[in-house]
């Protein structure tokens, strides 16, 4: 087993990995930027090294610096977390070449899945259903028009190197095709430095369902069931669940088996996720493979009882998978809500500032993965994820009730958050009965006023009264500090 692991990440996921290291008696090393000097991830690890200025390009995306620290301090392995270098072929290769183990798949698996057209081709050859459309880049408009005709409108034009909803355009009819084609090409070049574009049938109102898989270096494969991730805003997941209540055991069997085939097709090892679109008729199509640990992995942990990060480390160290498919099952239901520093009343703009107060929920069936503490700074430089709230219940209903209850226990002061918006989703009838697809937020929350629940009369009264009390006390010069009689200081004095 490894003696020492470097975590090339920050925030909650760095803490998540440190926790796994501690439980496995492995020393953890973190790196931190200027803006993260006071962040918990730097102080929870056994060793922490400053790597540069706040912008990611000078710190968490500084490949040379990270690898040179890894060599200097003598780590056996690097865990990339998610984002940053987690799916970067060049970084993985550089790590491999230094004789350090990358906790994740091989660079060749990542490369095979990195380009969408190449991945579609590979999946097509391995009997993994893909969304109908082209499996190689479209070079000429005439070629595209022909393909669109074949699969019928509406179609999606997508950047082959793209992701995250960028470099993508919906084309509803033939006369929209040419201008959209040029525009996606331009965008793809700008964002991904690659203007290859391909075409896909547009699936109307699909659900986003993904399968967690694991492979070891001995060719053993298992899946950890599916996650339902249809609650998204601008292609960003905000609520995820496991299992999906939309699919029955029969479809579950098919979709998980297909995911395993996809993983085998690229000789995959370590943790990975196969994303599918599922339409109204329960047809499912390969969307893409995420060759890393996902943000939403805790819901799979809650229903399976596994620790996915420990399993990742175990596999990277060259051990066989610690369990077999028949050893695990689905126990209960788990839901994750992502708490972001953003302002739902102001077009969800990121909100920055110091966390003056941070009180986190707890109690039965609640797990919190947070990357900050009271006094931490939420800066402009990184993802505005403050915490992940995960609830578990015997049934979906219980898990949802717990999630709602726990959302009410948050007290976050200093930045705006989406907590009230998440509560509004939990109170939405269609969400409660499970009637939703990836367009849920656009459909149900088109009106910005619906993003927030107004303050109750009781809360307004409390706010009014305390404001007056403080104003009165301040003007009469009363000291606000109250001293308790039975504290240690007085005991010491008396003793």
């Amino acid at each position, binding site marked *: 087993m490894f003696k020492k692991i470097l975590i090339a990440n920050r925030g909650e996921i760095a803490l998540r990995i440190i926790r796994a290291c501690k439980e496995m008696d492995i020393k953890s090393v973190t790196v931190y930027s200027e803006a993260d000097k006071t962040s918990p991830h730097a102080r929870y690890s056994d060793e922490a090294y400053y790597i540069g200025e706040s912008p990611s390009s000078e710190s968490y995306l500084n490949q040379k610096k990270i690898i040179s620290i890894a060599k200097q301090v003598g780590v056996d392995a690097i865990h990339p977390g998610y984002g940053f270098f987690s799916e970067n072929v060049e970084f993985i290769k550089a790590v491999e070449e230094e004789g350090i183990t990358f906790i994740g798949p091989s660079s060749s698996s990542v490369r095979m899945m990195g380009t969408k057209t190449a991945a579609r081709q590979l999946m097509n050859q391995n009997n993994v259903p893909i969304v109908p459309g082209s499996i190689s880049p479209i070079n000429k408009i005439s070629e595209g028009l022909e393909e669109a005709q074949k699969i019928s409108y509406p179609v999606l034009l997508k950047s082959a190197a793209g992701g995250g909803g960028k470099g993508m355009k919906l084309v509803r009819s033939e006369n929209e095709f040419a201008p959209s084609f040029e525009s996606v090409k331009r965008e793809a070049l700008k964002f991904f430095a690659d203007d290859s574009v391909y075409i896909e049938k547009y699936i109307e109102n699909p659900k986003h369902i993904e399968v967690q898989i694991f492979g070891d270096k001995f060719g053993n494969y298992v899946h950890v069931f599916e996650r339902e991730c249809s609650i998204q805003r601008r292609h960003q997941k905000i609520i995820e669940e496991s299992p999906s209540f939309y699919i029955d055991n029969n479809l579950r069997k098919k979709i998980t088996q297909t995911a395993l085939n996809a993983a085998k097709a690229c000789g995959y090892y370590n943790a990975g996720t196969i994303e599918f679109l599922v339409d109204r008729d329960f047809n499912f199509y390969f969307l893409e493979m995420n060759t890393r640990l996902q943000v939403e992995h805790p819901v799979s942990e809650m229903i399976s009882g596994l620790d996915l990060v420990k399993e990742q480390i175990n596999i990277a160290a060259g051990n066989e998978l610690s369990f077999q498919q028949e050893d695990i099952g689905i126990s209960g239901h788990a839901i994750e809500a992502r708490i972001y520093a953003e302002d739902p009343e102001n077009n969800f*703009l990121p909100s920055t500032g110091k966390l003056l107060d941070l009180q986190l929920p707890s109690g039965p069936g609640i797990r919190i993965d947070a990357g900050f503490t009271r006094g931490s700074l939420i800066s402009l430089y990184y993802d505005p994820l403050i915490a992940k709230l995960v609830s578990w219940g015997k049934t979906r209903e219980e898990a949802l009730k717990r999630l709602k209850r726990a959302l009410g226990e948050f007290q976050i002061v200093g930045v705006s958050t989406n907590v009230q918006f998440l509560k509004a989703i939990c109170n939405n009838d269609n969400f409660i009965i499970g009637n939703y697809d990836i367009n849920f937020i656009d459909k149900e929350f088109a009106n910005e006023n619906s993003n927030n629940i107004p303050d109750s009369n009781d809360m307004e009264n409390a*706010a009014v*009264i305390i404001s007056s009390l403080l104003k009165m006390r301040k003007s009469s010069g009363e000291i606000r500090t109250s001293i308790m009689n039975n504290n240690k200081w007085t005991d010491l004095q008396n003793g």
Partner: protein
Amino acid sequence: MDEFVVTVNSKKRNVRFLGNSLITVESQEFQHELYHLSGDTYLLKLENKIYEIFITQIDEEKFIISIAGRNIHTIVRTSLKEKAVNLIEQNFPIQNTLEVKAPMPGMIIKIIKKPGDEVLKGDSILILEAMKMENDLKAHISGKIIFINVKEGMAVEKGYSLFTIG
């Protein structure tokens, strides 16, 4: 008798302290107890309900009251002050005032002027740090600082109202 007018969510509420921990908000009566928990955190008991409240004080009369996960903005004035403010607003509608907004998100590092100060065009009012650069925010017109909406150490979004000169 102490009387205050509190503005909350664009509504005005009259508050009276009647002694013996009795308070009225408009015509509703409340028995209250206040306990200072620590730092900026208080417990307020109203009748049979206890609230944990975190206070951010912006200036003499502006507060952000964080309660049950919500942040409620209040402006509190004595009744006398409220009357005076209303009178001024009625008789001297604010003219030639300039509301200065944050040109970019950042943090208020230093506030140089205070409300009531006379300033000349070009005077520095406060310093906003954004992207590791300190930006001097200056008066665009000469006049008097009417109010400053921020405090030192506070993070602001782009477009956040910083101060008003009139």
